């Protein structure tokens, strides 16, 4: 059995309520931090733990915290990024739905470390049922003295707010998130300045993912040194993986970093193998943005070593033969999946979500989608495949925010590893379209879906 830290009490009935959560040792990290540690010591503990951001980029959290500017007389803010919109990623939702108090506790401890007296949870608009869950948890925390003025009789005070967005992937990018939180159009800002210097309302701000903030709780409880022993190398701790696709047991799993990818896909503890015992074809290991890898490369690196679920191992080989852990959205595709069809879904998503500020992403994402669509419909040419490659190349690295890269990488990797499939589509489109399974949901009736809510 793998070690569970974040989800340790997930199966306890009523763990979403304050009483049960508290009876299982909840809010101990707040007590420990506020009563026995200085904010600086909390930051040090997080540094020692080796915790890295769980929102996608994997930036060391302790380091990010220590970059926070502390000018005299200016407030600083902690903002929790709960915008979770990356296709294939749904771990934050699971965590907030079942363990809302874990996030609230993490927010208090982290805010204390950063000297923030006002903190926000910016949550994706589509998750509005979670807003109620979080607000209830926050109300319970206020009622029991964990939030508000002079928490636990110390002179530390904190107010915590939940702020729902209007439903845009781009508002997960930290500076777009801050713009949106300020009530403006969610356009990413041009950096520098980084949020640590000028973030929310121009004040020093730290933006962290839900899972990152939740992980601060066990770190403070068990000490950073202990946490650093979990996992492998620079990939310390556990990671929530959202597993989906053609597997027997889709869901959210907490893994200790360093288990093999093979184990994760095939063992009964996790995904339980491929649905209907078909053959594995490809995996998108970290959410739709990261490069797709064919079965052989996801199970073993180019050097023939077993690939592990860790930041380093998944990235082994660069983009030529590797990928990224990203936000842990693990999408498994069996042999019947059409890579081109799947790519079209991704491309359409990025086209729809581009904010439109910078020309390569605004125009390029739509262009790529149209070309892939053309290939799918049987009107593509071999030149179209090269054109697609050229477009993604001209987007990547030339945009304001990483959404441009995120749109380019899936296209690049699909062509890199599955070019033959594109060519088959061009040469014999009708045969290709008989492929049955693909991640495609053309016919969702949005009006009906909304009216049922």
């Amino acid at each position, binding site marked *: 059995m793998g070690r569970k830290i974040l989800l340790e009490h997930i199966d306890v009935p009523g763990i979403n309520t304050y009483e049960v959560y508290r009876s299982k040792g909840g809010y101990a990290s707040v007590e420990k931090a506020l009563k026995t540690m200085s904010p600086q010591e909390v930051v040090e503990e997080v540094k020692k733990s080796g915790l890295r951001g769980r929102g996608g980029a994997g930036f060391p959290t302790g380091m990010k915290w220590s970059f926070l500017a502390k000018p005299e007389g200016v407030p600083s803010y902690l903002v929790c990024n709960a915008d979770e919109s990356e296709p294939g990623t749904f771990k934050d939702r699971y965590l907030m739905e079942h363990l809302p108090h874990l996030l609230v506790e993490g927010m208090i401890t982290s805010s204390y470390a950063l000297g923030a007296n006002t903190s926000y949870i910016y949550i994706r608009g589509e998750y509005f049922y979670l807003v109620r869950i979080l607000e209830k948890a926050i109300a319970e925390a206020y009622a029991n003295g964990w939030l508000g003025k002079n928490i636990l009789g110390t002179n530390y005070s904190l107010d915590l707010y939940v702020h729902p967005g209007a439903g*845009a992937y*781009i508002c997960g990018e930290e500076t777009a998130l801050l713009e949106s939180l300020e009530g403006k*159009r969610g356009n990413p800002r*041009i950096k520098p300045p980084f949020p640590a210097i000028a973030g929310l309302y121009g004040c020093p701000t730290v933006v962290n993912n839900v899972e990152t903030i939740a992980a601060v709780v066990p770190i403070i409880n068990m000490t950073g040194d202990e946490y650093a022993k979990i996992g492998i190398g620079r990939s310390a701790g556990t990671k929530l993986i959202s597993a989906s696709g053609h597997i027997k047991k889709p869901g959210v799993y907490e893994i200790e970093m360093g288990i093999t990818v093979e184990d994760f896909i095939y063992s009964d503890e996790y995904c339980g193998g491929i649905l209907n015992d078909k053959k594995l074809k490809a995996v998108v290991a970290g959410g739709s943005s990261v490069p797709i890898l064919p079965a052989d490369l996801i199970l073993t690196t180019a050097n023939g070593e077993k690939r592990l679920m860790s930041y380093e191992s998944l990235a082994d080989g660069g983009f030529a033969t590797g990928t990224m852990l990203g936000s842990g959205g693990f999408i498994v595709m069996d042999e019947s999946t059409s890579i081109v069809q799947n790519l079209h879904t991704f491309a359409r998503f990025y*086209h*729809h*979500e*581009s*904010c*439109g*500020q*910078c*020309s*390569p992403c*605004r*125009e*390029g*994402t*739509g*262009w790529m989608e*149209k070309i892939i669509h053309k290939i799918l419909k049987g009107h593509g040419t071999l030149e179209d495949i090269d*054109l697609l490659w050229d477009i993604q190349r*001209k*987007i990547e*690295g*030339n*945009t*304001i925010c990483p959404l441009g890269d995120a749109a380019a990488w899936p296209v690049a990797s699909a062509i890199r590893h599955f070019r033959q499939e594109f060519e088959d589509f061009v040469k014999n489109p009708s045969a290709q379209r008989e492929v049955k399974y693909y991640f495609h949901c053309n016919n969702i009736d949005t009006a009906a879906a909304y009216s049922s809510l």
Partner: protein
Amino acid sequence: MAKITIDGIQIEVPDGTTILNAARMIGPDVAPPTMCYYSKLKTSGGYCRTCLVEVTAGSEKDPRPMPKLVASCRTTVMDGMIVANNTSAKVKDARAGVVEFLLLNHPLDCPVCDQAGECHLQDLSYDHGNYKTRTDFERRTFEKIDIGEKIQLHMTRCILCYRCVKTAEQITDGRVHGVLNRGDHAEISTYIEEAIDNDFSGNVIDVCPVGALTDKTFRFKSRVWFTKPVDANRNCENERCSGKVVLWYQGEEVLRVTGRKDQWGEVEEFICNTCRFDKKQTSDWTIEGPRKINRHSVISANHYMNLVKPKELKLNDIKQITE
């Protein structure tokens, strides 16, 4: 002060200068092209990506190259920085890509566009674009919208440089102008077509690099190269207005009034709507004299000043030129 080298030319500039402005100090041959940056507007720039340059050495202290191309309009110089603009193959490639992206949904209706002849997108695609289009998809179109009595928005031509948005924010009072929607459906809007009613709103026409915002009092009256620009001024009642303008004549008639644009195509001073739209008589103005226009601009084609008589060429000269 910081020493910076751009395309092999060194210059010393005050700290905090952007790479773009340092390059402009060296001269137009070195300066990267810009479509969205506007030195008179705060926080402009960074969007269009035409001014991307390669930083081959970050600074004296840390001479590592920067991993990606950077927007020169938004990146400040460091002492000892080395930048490649026209000399970088990467930059040329990326810039050609940007031009292609900007033209992807642009209608290319230059023959009927009022901006033709003074359009930055025309110049940019001439200098950096391909001669061939690689797309055969239908282009995005929008309905034309009147914003106020005097200004028309032809969104189909817009490249979303955000200059008019910043103008509306910073020059006019009250923010009634912004961007709606996302991605390639994003559009400039005066919140639900509410007319901009403001004595400086006409400046959005001058800052527009393409023909998306045009002067309705001038629409279809003439091609710019058939008009003759003349510097003029008046003692404007509006204290925020400089009253320094260019009158564009055809014969005796003033067809339009604009602000004066500098070498980089940016207005020197913003002017008010009264000067722009209501003062179209020569008697309203004190005439200063013909406006100097770059000899290479199509606008100078029909002017009688600075005319250079072509040297008679011999066969040998032609060979030399073509080689």
